[in-house]
């Protein structure tokens, strides 16, 4: 049994950084190929979930403490809405990205990148939060 666990631990230690890298790749290449915020957020969360499955919820809580996941949840949504407010302050409509730069194309590109990043952050935070709550409850019940 011990060898089985150590194989899992080694393999997951090797796999988790590429998973996070792939999530960032999917996030920022959403313009050129399939991808975008949602997929990237889910893949990023799955790296944390893999860590929590192999190493236990307590270790996972040390890596992703409650304040950080709550911050990720809220910050993504604020970024999204904030971009809209900024475009309104700059003179256009809400979420009209052409106002963000001199050239409308650059403005659109910048706006889309920021928005997708906000979406990815919130989705990742939400998935990690939900899974860690389920898992924390499971450990609490096992200790009863």
């Amino acid at each position, binding site marked *: 049994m011990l060898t089985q666990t150590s194989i899992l631990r080694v393999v997951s230690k090797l796999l988790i950084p590429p998973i996070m890298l792939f999530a960032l790749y999917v996030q920022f290449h959403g313009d050129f*190929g*399939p991808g975008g915020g*949602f997929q990237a957020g889910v893949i990023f969360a799955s790296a944390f979930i893999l860590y929590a499955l192999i190493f236990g919820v307590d270790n996972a809580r040390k890596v992703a403490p409650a304040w950080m996941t709550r911050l990720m949840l809220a910050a993504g949504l604020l970024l999204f809405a904030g971009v809209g407010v900024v475009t309104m302050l700059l003179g256009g409509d809400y979420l009209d990205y052409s106002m963000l730069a001199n050239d409308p194309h650059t403005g659109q590109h910048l706006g889309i990148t920021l928005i997708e990043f906000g979406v990815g952050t919130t989705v990742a935070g*939400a998935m990690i939060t*939900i899974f860690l*709550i*389920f898992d924390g409850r499971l450990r609490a019940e096992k200790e009863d």
Partner: protein
Amino acid sequence: MQIVSGLFNYWIVIVLMMMGFYMVISQHNLIKKIVGLNVFQVSVFVFYISMGKIKGGTAPILADGIEIYSNPLPHVLILTAIVVGVATSALALALTVRIQDAYGTIEEDEIEALETEMQVKDQEELP
């Protein structure tokens, strides 16, 4: 037969949808109901995506030399719908955990029996 081959994809989706619907209304276990809801949702998504396909088209990513693209509008709507669906399922599963805590079971008929027992007891205690 021309009609059947053209409409076959809609009919298979309807079959899947009805199976999911049946699971939701007839199964007693709450988790199987949620799985049935998932089946229903996925079949609806397949329906929309199959309506968006154009013969001879490719994925809706602009590239040189490609003339026909598949319609990107259903893809966007379904993307949103998938994520909303998983959010709903997550909340439903959390509710199931709470129901298990409160009633001790997740079979629907046992929960109804416990509910009517509790109602009867409350009415007895009233006056």
